[in-house]
């Protein structure tokens, strides 16, 4: 199998999210399984046809196995690899390869979390040697260290970071599904005066802490064309990582998204300027700036100003659901980045994937980029999705 045998050969035919917000009384598994059944219902594919299962959570050490047991299925191929919040975007690449190799015919990729109802941010991360003794407030401390270094190298201020949170909120106001939909606009003053967490990051520089689950259904393109939804084809996918601890990050202002993006674009045959929507993993305000730069949408150091182009109506639609900052963030956000990339394309193709206020849907969108981040700016995975005409 080579790259040309992956590009455009598999597609997502069903998707769902559930419990995004606060769901007291529901377990992470119950939410995740509900998302799986909803995604299968969306696709029209029976659960008995699911023979590939992919899952990761912060609640299950062997998520794929626990989920298959709960669903009562016997996958022929499963992958519960956990590289943090980007896990699902790498599961998508693995699923595409397993589908194309003929190991499986229908893949489900799933995630679930009840962290907000269960008491707050949930992690199963082990203590990091050579960091844990200093009691960093992970992951916030790591992102704050990167933000501080970025501000130093590129003469950026907290006001530049604030624009990221303000843009995300404006998109959330257009999306009735967003957790902060009813909360109104954010001002620069709101963000700068919010409770400091780890300088230079304040509370509104940090993502939401919500519950939530999501799932997608993937098949080979030949089968995808027979389903009732508009299939969204995987055009490119690539990953890279180089550190687990923030103290080991080679360059605090450049991530592996440089490499994951480059290879994902190469596989897709498209370039950054061809992307109609861009969905980036915004766990913290600094993320969006770094990923816009590293994926090539602007030069290194220019993201702090370029962010103004990402508000609704701007030249580049970024995080159009409201992002992890204002839509949903149950702890591992990768599958929600993916869902938004897919939904924008399905809406553009005429599927009913929900209501948005004017400007919330990107008209004539044909290609979406979804970018996942895991750990502390560690694992980076880029997926590029397109309508059939883009293959």
């Amino acid at each position, binding site marked *: 199998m080579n790259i040309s045998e992956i590009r455009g050969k598999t597609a997502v035919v069903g998707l769902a999210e559930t419990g995004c917000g606060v769901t007291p009384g529901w377990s992470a598994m119950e939410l995740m399984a509900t998302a799986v059944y909803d995604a299968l219902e969306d696709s029209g594919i029976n659960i008995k046809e699911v023979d590939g299962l992919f899952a990761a959570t912060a609640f299950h050490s062997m998520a794929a196995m626990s989920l298959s047991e709960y669903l009562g299925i016997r996958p022929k191929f499963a992958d519960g690899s956990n590289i943090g919040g980007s896990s699902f975007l790498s599961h998508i690449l693995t699923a595409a390869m397993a589908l194309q190799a003929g190991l499986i015919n229908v893949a489900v990729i799933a995630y679930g979390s009840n962290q907000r109802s269960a008491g707050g941010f949930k992690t199963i991360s082990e203590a990091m*040697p*050579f*960091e*844990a*003794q*200093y*009691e*960093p*407030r992970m992951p916030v*401390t790591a992102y*704050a*260290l*990167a933000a*501080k*270094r970025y501000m*130093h190298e590129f003469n950026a201020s907290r006001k530049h970071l604030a624009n990221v949170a303000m843009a995300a909120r404006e998109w959330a106001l257009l999306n009735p599904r967003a957790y902060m939909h009813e909360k109104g606009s954010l001002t620069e003053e709101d963000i700068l005066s919010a*409770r*400091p*967490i*780890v*300088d*230079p990051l304040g509370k509104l520089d940090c993502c939401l802490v919500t519950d939530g689950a999501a799932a997608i259904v993937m098949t080979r393109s030949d089968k995808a064309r027979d389903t009732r939804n508009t299939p969204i084809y995987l055009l490119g996918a690539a990953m890279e990582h180089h550190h687990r*601890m*923030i*103290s*080991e990050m080679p360059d*605090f202002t450049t991530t592996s998204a440089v490499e994951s993006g480059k290879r994902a674009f190469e596989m897709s045959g498209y370039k950054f300027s061809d992307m109609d929507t861009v969905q980036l993993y915004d766990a913290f305000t600094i993320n969006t700036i770094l990923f816009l730069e590293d994926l090539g949408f602007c030069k290194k150091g220019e993201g702090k100003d370029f962010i103004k182009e990402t508000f609704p109506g701007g030249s580049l639609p970024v995080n159009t659901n409201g992002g992890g900052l204002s839509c949903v963030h149950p702890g591992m956000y990768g599958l929600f980045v993916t869902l938004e990339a897919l939904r924008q394309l399905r809406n553009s193709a005429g599927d009913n994937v929900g209501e948005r206020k004017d400007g919330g849907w990107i008209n004539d969108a044909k290609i979406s980029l979804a970018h996942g981040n895991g750990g502390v700016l560690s694992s980076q995975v880029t997926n590029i999705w397109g309508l059939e005409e883009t293959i």
Partner: protein
Amino acid sequence: MPEILKDKVGPQKQFHQHLDEGKFKIQRSKVTGEYFFHPRVAFPGTGDRDLEWVEVSGNGVVHSTTCNRRLPEKGGDFNLSIIKLDEGPKMMAMVFGVEPDKVEIGNKVKARIIELKGENNIVFDLIKD
């Protein structure tokens, strides 16, 4: 058998044993002379296992810094920084000698051994000009 397995304990434990003796040592390649941190069984990226422990100067520069906000009853605000050692590698540690939110990137610092979490560890003091 690789040379390193003749040692009684692994590199992580050896690092702390050196600190117990009052010495801040890190590893370097005998071949290239290049240093690395954190301690490992081989040079990261090359697999070079011909290593030696070397006592370092303890001098470094603040590469990035944060003030971690914490309630006074839980110990109050504290500094966490990334220090670039003069020998090259970077490491995480607290910087003392100034308010936790007054440490600046580029500040010169000097290592000190203190007990944290029941074992000896490195922290840094600001060098005042």
